[in-house]
């Protein structure tokens, strides 16, 4: 378990599991509001891990963390808005 002290190893494991969940939701034919929110939440968590632990912005100047995490929030919000419009 010593290996899991490395944030990159932890991130890689979580990313693999999260990808498996998204794939499974697709196979199960998940659709509609709950499925969309779940998949966006998973993508958000994955993106954040890449930004913080792969790009190593966890300890970067706040500006760059905000810019990249802000991009992720912007993209997720726009997609959510568009899907919400389509579900009305």
């Amino acid at each position: 378990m010593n290996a899991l002290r490395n944030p990159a190893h932890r991130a890689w494991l979580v990313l693999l599991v999260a990808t498996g969940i998204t794939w499974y939701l697709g196979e199960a034919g998940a659709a509609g509001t709950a499925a969309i929110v779940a998949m966006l939440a998973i993508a958000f968590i994955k993106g954040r891990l890449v930004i913080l632990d792969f790009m190593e912005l966890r300890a970067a100047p706040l500006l760059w963390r905000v810019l990249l995490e802000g991009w992720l929030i912007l993209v997720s919000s726009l997609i959510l808005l568009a899907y919400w419009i389509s579900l009305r």
Partner: protein
Amino acid sequence: MITATIGRMDSTLAPAARSTPQRASRLPGDLAIWFFILAELLAFAVFFAAYAFARAGHVEEFNLYQQTLDRNAGALNTVLLISGSWFVVLAVQAAHRDDRPAIPRNLLLGFLCGGGFLAVKVFEYAAKFGAGITLSTNTFYMFYISLTFFHFMHVILGMVILAILWVQARKDVYGAHDAHGLESGAAYWHMVDLLWIVLFPLVYVMR
């Protein structure tokens, strides 16, 4: 110039900073690469939003043709890019602890993951183009082909960067004294991964 100098000073300070629990604020790599990454991310944000809003006007069409996409190939490609990114992080970490042989080894593994991604994608495109699907077949396929192909080109550029880093690492350029160029290239490679993490659920799964 000033930023590059500051960056280099930072990277020489990095090993000391890493051994202390205090958070030393440091942007990995060159400042210029982060502006480039930001520009690329914004371009893709426009494409992602365009896809999502175009879908809102053609929900039935998008839901129908999304079913024809190879979700297994998309998920496999996610695994390949995630692992490719992970190997490149390991290369950067190896540089910081001055484990020189591990740098090119991990870069090569990252490059091979990229190659695997391209191979899967070529098979996917061959199946679609073989079925007579083109950009003008319908709105969904127009987005599917252009979005994934634009990303495909970024994977190729990322692999070119990894190849350059590999050559440099083999010349023993990177180590604890300087991992600047390596970190810049790595950041670009992670961006390619980040984009696919949004693209895969959006185009292949969400409905």
